[in-house]
């Protein structure tokens, strides 16, 4: 995520990001988290994929939930093309049991990892759900932002995530590397 340096004297940004957020072009440092079944998932196991999509998602956020079907469709369309898709739940109040039920109810078949104490959300600088990070085969960040430009899904003008993945798979420059959308807060623990 780009860090916006305040340009006005006296400007204070009180965002709940902490460490320097990741930026386009940054390398992904592999990490391991438990999924909602308690199984360790090491991102190293996805090395060799043509792309890796990390999605900060939620069970209770209406915006994230508006994208459930689109996330399931994305996995169905892109996993066969060699794209690894991994969800991350960093919300303090959403349990692994709740994540499991939610995934089952909404057909989210990709792994969803529990980010206890929002450690990874802090490292990435992730702020909202849903928030997406796309890495290429060399694990360089190529896209960060929204899934598309229409929360309701009835008038999508820009398929930002699909466009990014298509570009990465084709070995081309991602046309729009960073986008924003309205979303829910990642409910962090007090540190």
């Amino acid at each position: 995520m780009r860090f916006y340096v305040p340009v006005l004297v006296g400007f204070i940004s009180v965002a709940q990001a902490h460490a320097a957020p990741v930026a386009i072009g940054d390398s992904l440092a592999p990490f391991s988290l438990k999924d909602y079944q308690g199984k360790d998932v090491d991102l190293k196991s996805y090395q060799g994929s043509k792309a890796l999509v990390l999605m900060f998602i939620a069970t209770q956020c209406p915006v994230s939930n508006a994208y459930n079907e689109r996330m399931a469709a994305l996995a169905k369309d892109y996993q066969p093309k060699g794209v690894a898709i991994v969800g991350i739940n960093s919300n303090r109040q959403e349990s692994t049991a709740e994540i499991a039920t939610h995934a089952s109810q909404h057909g989210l078949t990709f792994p969803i990892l529990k980010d206890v104490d929002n450690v990874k959300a802090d490292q990435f600088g992730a702020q909202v759900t849903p928030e997406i990070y796309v890495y290429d085969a060399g694990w360089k960040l190529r896209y960060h932002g929204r899934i598309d430009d229409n929360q309701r899904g009835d008038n999508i003008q820009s398929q930002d995530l699909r466009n990014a993945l298509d570009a990465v798979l084709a070995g081309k420059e991602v046309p729009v590397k960073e986008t924003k959308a309205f979303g829910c807060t990642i409910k962090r623990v007090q540190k």
Partner: protein
Amino acid sequence: MIALVLAGVLAGELDAPRLWRALDAYRGRPVVVSFWATWCKPCVEEFPVLMALARERKDLAVVSVSIDEKEDRGALEAFVREKGPPFPVYAKAPGDDEAFINGVDPAWSGVVPATLIVGPDGKRLALIQGEHSREEIERAIAGGKR
């Protein structure tokens, strides 16, 4: 001209440039601009805090901007009617969300709730992204006075 607050009635629709023009009316005192949505639980929980702030701090202004989509306007109007806040509640005009977010503040991730503190000079003073307390809002206002 400062928006006439008709209790329980939306003050109108705004895109980012129109919001900044509307905020010009409050020059001379800090403005707490709250961005929220009816579907956002922490935003709804924060609403009474903003109402109390507006009632008790006459040295500042509170302006509320809902980012609810046009299709949810009925829920927004019902909410505002029920609460009758002592500050204007605008609705984000239909259109590009990203342009609105960046037009309000390039540092805003798009998360709601978000609170922008505008100084008496009409410039951005602080941006609070996510849930926050009244104390945090007041600290941000005071911090900007340094």
